[in-house]
């Protein structure tokens, strides 16, 4: 599974960081950083939740 964030859409509201802080982090510069772009299957449920909870529909998953 590969995480793709559309940074033109992302507004760094950190909803995803609340759900999966080990994968998403909004830093002091107010940008979102994807800490782990290819998490394992065990993270799929949480990543799916991030995809759904992202109000800007900025996160997608390939594979």
């Amino acid at each position, binding site marked *: 599974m590969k995480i793709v964030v559309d940074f033109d859409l992302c507004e760094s*509201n950190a*909803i995803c*960081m609340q759900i999966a802080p080990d994968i998403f982090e909004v830093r*002091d510069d107010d940008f979102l950083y994807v800490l782990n772009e290819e998490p394992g299957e065990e993270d799929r449920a949480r990543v799916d939740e991030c995809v759904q909870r992202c109000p800007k*529909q900025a996160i997608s998953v390939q594979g």
Partner: protein
Amino acid sequence: MTRRSVTIVGASLAGIRAAEALRRQDFDGSITLIGDELHAPYDRPPLSKQFLAGDWGEDRLALTQPDKLDDLDLELRLGVRATSFDLASRRLGIVDLDDQGCSGRGGRGGEEFVVDGLLIATGARCRTLRGSEGLDGVFVLRSLDDSLAIRAAFDAGPTRVVVVGAGFIGAEVAATARTQGLEVTMIESLPQPLSRVLGDEMGAVCAELHREHGVDLRTGVGVEAIEGEDRVERVRLSDGSVIEADVVVVGIGVVPNTEWLEGSGLRIDNGVVCDATCLAAPGVTAAGDVARWPNQRFGEVMRVEHWDNAVSQGAHAAGRLLVGDDEAEPFVPVPWFWSDQYDRKIQMAGRIGPDDEMHVATGSLAERRFAAIYGRAGRLVGVLGFNRPRHVMRYRMLIESGTSFSDAVAAEF
């Protein structure tokens, strides 16, 4: 708890997310999702923003993709309205809105069937201004079709758009119209926009934002009448002034869609009344804009009209149908909301009241880039941010962990 089937009424944000949550929790019974709109489930926030501006097409609104929908293995019945429910017999009445009925049922008569689990997610609809119905050029904004109609009216190059109500939806419509170069007058009966929620000081910050972008904002004044022959021609205000207008958008709040539940045996009072776990009656839950429940975190009965709440309450209410009373968890979110106006991202988390103690934690009101935090009875209860999304989330986490107001004031991010 073994449940054979779940019927979800309302095929929008809360309804779709509820169906997804059921499957995520390995529910393998049947799911029926009933919605009275003809469009495939779509997202509403862009309807006053990117979609209204013409920047996004319909494809960007989809709440789910066809393959994902297939995975959910549900019976999706669009263009079908629930018209009645009886708790004692668990009979749900529905009617196919398509008169011809491609199914050949002929619609009008409707049908009834017995449901097992029922999840109510019928949302809310716009309040209208009495006397303006049937007048061309007067709009509300809730649905995709509403947004398309307003977009067409904007494209026709009106000489003036009047927005009635400076709440979040009205403010976004005004911002989108101004960004397209249209002349806009916005009318608000409160002394400042949103002052009932944010207080006068923050309301004034919102007012200034619109005035700086060229909106003719009139506050503390109501609408007497919307006048015209067939089309709207002018708006008459309570201070005697008259504004010529060819497009009027009314954004004066919403009412929950509960009429179909009258006489059902469920308690209806400004929404479907639920317990702390989102349960309205045995085997019946509610979620999203239509649900009212006591949020134990704030010791307050609330009905929340925010996107994020529809998502998380949809999931919670779905899970609630799968567990017994003793395992059920209360639904205790910190509500969170955003609104995009011009180049400002306004966000609010928690519960803000006009009498709360307020502290500007970062940035400045003058620059309209700040995060302000709110305290009540010594506790951090809310945060309001203009272009400070990260701070809003940090403080939201502090609200979640029950931080005192003084600790929140001392915190640094």
